[in-house]
């Protein structure tokens, strides 16, 4: 993976307020994804295959984000470097590839196996952080232990609900 230019790299020394806002945003994301999963379940049970549902919901999501981002985003994109463009596009491609893998995994294996295995994403995020973001973020043994606990907890919930 390409690192951004050194001058653009800001070390993550987050003030308390910034950190709390980040936590709140992440909790909001988790809640939205959980609620979204209920809606997606209804859509794929009654109306379409997971891939078709994903394609349509992404088109609607795309329109909504475009309206939300507005002209400010267009101006920012005009100023953005190629690296910035490439990284943002790569985030979309990798995320969509992961989602497609998840949908196909569900058709090839029981959910009780797929959910805990795909739920290891925080472990991968921490591993990739150690490898690629050494200059931006510090990962401590305590954080790794917490991550393992969360992944084990996710596996327990998947097994318990199956």
């Amino acid at each position, binding site marked *: 993976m390409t690192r951004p230019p050194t001058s653009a790299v800001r070390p993550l020394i987050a003030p308390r307020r910034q950190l709390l806002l980040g*936590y709140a945003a992440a909790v909001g994301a988790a809640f939205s994804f959980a609620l979204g999963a209920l809606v997606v379940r209804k859509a794929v049970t009654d109306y379409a295959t997971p891939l078709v*549902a994903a394609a*349509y919901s992404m088109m609607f*999501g795309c329109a909504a984000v*475009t309206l939300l*981002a507005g002209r400010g985003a267009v101006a920012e*994109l005009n100023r953005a470097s190629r690296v*910035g463009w490439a990284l943002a596009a790569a985030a979309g491609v990798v995320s969509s590839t992961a989602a497609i893998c998840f949908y196909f*995994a569900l058709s090839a294996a029981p959910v009780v196996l797929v959910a805990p295995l795909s739920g290891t994403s925080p472990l991968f995020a921490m591993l990739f*952080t150690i490898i690629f973001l050494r200059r931006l973020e510090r990962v401590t043994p305590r954080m790794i232990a917490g991550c393992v606990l969360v992944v084990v907890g996710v596996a327990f919930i998947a097994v318990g609900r199956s």
Partner: protein
Amino acid sequence: MLGIALSILAGAGFGATAVIVRLSVQHMRPITVTLVSIVAGAVMTLAAASAIDGRGMVGVAAAALPWFLAAGLLNFPAGRLLNFTGVSLAGVSRASLIVGATPLFALVLAVVLGGESVNATTIAGTLAIIGGLALVLSQQ
């Protein structure tokens, strides 16, 4: 075996996304990264869906559209934008851990909205997630 490999690939992909986003927000605001990423992802997903299930893409019932709209709004302007904002403000290791706890939020919703009952395994999982989050988020 294929299902296991695809599940692990999905987990790795979601983890890698958070790291790429952390690098992207060095160049753009989270909302702009969300916009570019969703356009790139939508093009790819549309191409895959049209190639694999073209008939399903054109034969969608009108009654399905409100569900797709709701899923799109919850997952993208809400979920993805907040996720990317969380990564930008709190860092990958903290934000992706909270977002990784989504099954706990799903369980709470299933209990509150769907009347699902909890058992010893789900309670153990809940306690493990809360303990893990407390360990990481209390780190200065």
